[in-house]
Each structure stands twice: as structure tokens, then as C-alpha cells.
């Protein structure tokens, strides 16, 4: 509760959105999925910048590999050299901590909102008996603990798989040992998650699947970036990996369109890119 109270306005807001989704006609379970997707969609602008810089990193991969080869034995030195290299080449390494932390209150708020929702289901027992809280005909009641019905284990399995997959996509530059730890952790959390209401597992599953989807889109588009200074370089680089509700820069351009027209089209990002490339060539 100590953690929750400063988040009360956020929770109220989320609860209103959840109620609104339900009153539009979505069943409660789908309202949770919808709410999760809305939250993730609103967070997309934060991640788009990261994705763009990830492409930039990809373009400079050969040089980075060279550095990695040079300082293979010394991890600290290697990291330092890599970071210096990013700086010299104006590369934004993919992840930065602040956008990640921006998600934190939202996720905590969503967590509390859904937990409160599951503990005090609107309509009470009558609504539960009516099947208002069932999902896809195989989850009888999303307000019950995940281990109360076999369907909870199914969701849990999907959750673990999606967690591992999302970790896989998010941890491109991570050290191997760290990566394994990140993949093992969700399994360590299972005993706790079993006691969560199924609706929360549903939310977690959705948010992970969203991450996986984002990762897949990112992955598919990254290899299209040519080597730095290459002729087709500027085209695919500016291609949009922005899901529907992305921010304006490069948002409208479809990936295919960018591929078809490698000639640079002026847009917001263009001048900066040119500068960057010049620096890389030197």
C-alpha cells in the first residue's frame, strides 16, 4: 500500500479505462487485454527512438566487432572502448534506462488496478456465476488464482514462453550470462505468480507478447540496413518500424516503400543522419 498510494491517480485512471472498455461491450478478460495494449501503445513513442538507434548500431556492427575482437580478453576495457566508439559515431546504444523506468509506475499501477479488480469483482458472486469473468471458454474465472484451474497453467506456460522470448528479443547486446539469468528468472517467479489472479497473468502474457511482436518487427527490419555509407543506406534506415500509433518522424513511411525508394527523401531525421555518416567515414 505504501508503494501504491502515490500511484492512486494513475490507478483511478486505469480503472476508468478498464470500465470504459467493458461498458463498450468487451468482456472483462478482453478489457484487460485491451487496457494492456493501450498502455503499451502509448509507450511506443518511448521505444521508437531506441529502435532507431538500434538500427544505427547495426549499421556500425563491423567496426564494433573489430573492437570486440581486439579487446576480447578484457571485458571492462572492451565495454569502455565500445562506449567510446558509440560516442565517436554518435550512436545511441539501443537501451537507455529512463524510458524503461517510465514504464515502471505504469506497470505497478496496472498491477494494483488489476489486483484490486480481481479482489473486488464488479457484480460480485452473481456476475462470477453468470460467467462474466470467463475468457475464450477455457478460463472459467479470471479473478481466481492461477493455480485454481488447469487453464491457469496453460496461461502460465504461455507467460513463461513469452517472457523468455521477449527477453531474447530485448537483450540483443547483453552478455550471455546475464541473458541466461534473465531467462531463468521468470521460472523462479512461477511459485509467486501461481498465487496471482488469472487476470494478472493474462495482463503479463499480453504485455510480453506485445514485446515479442515489437521485437519481431524490429528484427525483421534491422538486417535491411546496409553497411555505413552504402548506397541504400539512408532509405531503409528511415523505414518505419513504428506500429500504428507511432510518433511523426518517419512514422508514415512503410518499410516496403522505403526499400523501393533508396533515394533519400527529406524528413526530420535526414540532416542528423548525414552528419553521423560523415563522422563514421572519417
Amino acid at each position: 500500500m505504501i508503494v501504491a498510494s502515490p500511484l492512486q491517480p494513475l490507478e483511478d485512471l486505469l480503472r476508468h479505462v478498464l470500465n470504459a472498455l467493458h461498458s463498450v461491450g468487451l468482456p472483462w478478460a478482453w478489457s484487460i487485454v485491451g487496457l494492456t495494449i493501450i498502455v503499451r501503445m502509448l509507450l511506443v513513442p518511448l521505444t521508437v527512438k531506441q529502435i532507431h538507434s538500434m538500427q544505427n548500431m547495426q549499421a556500425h556492427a563491423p567496426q564494433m566487432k573489430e573492437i570486440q575482437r581486439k579487446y576480447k580478453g578484457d571485458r571492462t576495457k572492451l565495454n569502455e572502448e565500445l562506449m567510446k566508439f558509440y560516442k565517436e559515431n554518435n550512436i545511441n546504444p539501443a537501451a537507455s534506462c529512463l524510458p524503461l523506468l517510465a514504464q515502471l509506475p505504469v506497470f505497478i499501477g496496472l498491477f494494483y488496478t488489476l489486483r484490486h479488480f480481481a479482489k473486488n469483482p464488479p457484480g460480485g458472486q452473481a456476475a462470477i456465476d453468470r460467467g462474466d469473468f470467463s475468457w475464450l471458454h477455457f478460463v472459467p474465472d479470471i479473478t481466481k488464482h492461477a493455480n485454481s484451474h488447469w487453464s491457469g497453467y496453460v496461461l502460465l506456460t504461455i507467460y513463461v514462453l513469452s517472457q523468455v522470448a521477449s527477453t531474447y528479443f530485448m537483450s540483443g547486446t547483453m552478455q550471455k550470462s546475464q541473458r541466461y539469468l534473465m531467462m531463468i528468472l521468470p521460472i523462479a517467479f512461477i511459485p509467486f505468480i501461481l498465487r496471482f489472479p488469472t487476470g494478472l497473468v493474462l495482463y503479463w502474457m499480453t504485455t510480453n507478447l506485445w514485446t515479442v511482436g515489437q521485437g519481431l518487427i524490429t528484427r525483421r527490419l534491422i538486417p535491411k540496413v546496409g553497411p555505413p555509407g552504402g548506397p541504400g543506406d539512408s532509405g531503409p534506415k528511415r523505414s518505419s518500424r513504428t506500429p500504428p500509433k507511432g510518433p511523426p518522424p518517419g512514422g508514415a513511411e512503410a518499410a516496403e516503400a522505403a526499400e523501393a525508394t533508396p533515394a533519400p527523401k527529406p524528413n526530420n531525421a535526414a540532416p542528423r543522419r548525414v552528419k553521423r555518416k560523415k563522422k563514421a567515414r572519417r
Partner: protein
Amino acid sequence: MRYVGVAAVWAYRFTLAPFLGVGQCKYHPSCSQYAIDAYKEFGFFKGTLLAGWRLLRCNPWSRGGVDYARDQKVFK
């Protein structure tokens, strides 16, 4: 007192960090490592301020790079 801060960072690393989909920090050392260093070197309050300032700098519009807690310029 400063080890409360260090413990908090470790708690974050093992609970919330995996759920946020953490990649790698753009700075070296990473923000959480920076926070631990800052706590150890400057104590709880200064450490918290330094770590907070570092987090604010670790945004999509900054460039990252090598940045040790001991090289900080906030407190002289």
C-alpha cells in the same frame, strides 16, 4: 545506511528489472552499477541524488559513454 541503497539496487535487479525488458544501459558502467558505486562512495543521500541524475541523463536523447561515479561533477 549506504548499504540500504546498495541492497535496494540489487532488489531492483532481481525483481523489477527482468520485467521491464532491460537491455543494456547506454553508459558504462550501467545505471544500476553506477548507483551501487555512488552509494558506496558517497553515502545514501548523495548517492541517491547522483543515481537519480544519472538516470535522467540516461535518456533517448543523450549519447551515453563512459561515466564513472567517482568522476561525478555534481558534488565537489
